């Protein structure tokens, strides 16, 4: 099966590979896996006080499409507010990368990772608010 040029570009030059401090209050971490192919994805966001995603990082063990999907997701998330980032859909990712039908689940994985990272960040903030002021 031939990969699209965009997939190859992201696969060969993945953007934003790496790790952020998982324990930091300003970092949200999303971990997801796809049983269908055994791919595992970690996507992290660093959010500033205005609720804007300043940095995004990922690490994906999987096929080219999964790596490209998460690479693109981090690119799109940077500079967006949490609410804006939450609207990114797997169909947008699949369309941008011209993923074939058998690889759609890779974009689903990326969308779920985005949601999981945002949820994790928000849960941390809620927890923070509930804690008594030091």
């Amino acid at each position, binding site marked *: 099966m031939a990969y699209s040029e965009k997939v190859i570009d992201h696969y060969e030059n993945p953007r934003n590979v790496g790790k952020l401090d998982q324990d930091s209050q300003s970092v949200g971490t999303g*971990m997801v896996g796809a049983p269908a192919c055994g791919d595992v994805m970690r996507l992290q966001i660093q959010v500033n006080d205005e609720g804007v995603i300043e940095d995004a990082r990922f690490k994906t063990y999987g096929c080219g499409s999964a790596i490209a999907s998460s690479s693109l997701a981090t690119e799109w998330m940077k500079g967006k507010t949490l609410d804006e980032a939450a609207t990114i859909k797997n169909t947008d990712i699949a369309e941008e990368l011209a993923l074939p039908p058998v690889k759609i689940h890779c974009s*689903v994985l990326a969308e779920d990772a985005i949601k999981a990272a945002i949820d994790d960040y928000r849960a941390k903030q809620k927890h923070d608010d509930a804690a008594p002021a030091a």
Partner: protein
Amino acid sequence: MVDLTKNYFELFELPLSCQVDLQRLSSQYRALQRAVHPDRFAGDDERQQRISIQYASHVNEAFNTLKQPLPRAIYLLKLAGRDVDIERNTIMDPGFLMEQMELREAVADIRSASNPEQEVERLASQVDADILRYLQQFEGFWVSATEQDLEQAETVVRKMLFMVKLAAELEQLESELLDD
């Protein structure tokens, strides 16, 4: 000749179980294959030949499903009314995923290890032990078979899918290392 309404266990006259007598499965498979082999119907009309091809592929599918523990487990769940929808399901236990990440990192580091052959063997036996543990867990849940147990069994199957994939990768890597 081949009753397509029978489940795969019935087809091979095996008890419905997580454990399958592989020798018996193979001998039953060979007997059925002989009975339905398309060559036997070479002189028959086209319709008869088409049916024979259909039977043969049904028998193959059944054999491949029961032969390996993981597809067998997925099939057992299907018979119990639970379709493991692996395509759409992504959210998993974070602890498990963390462990998967670490395992993948370890696999990625094998080539730069001081003794890669030893490292690949160590990881492979760890993964094999995990798969065995999951199979035992699956059997426990499948035998008790309450709705809750079957849901747990499904979760175990999803975890096994990751491990089996990893085991295949390690096997591939091992043969590559031997070729180097």
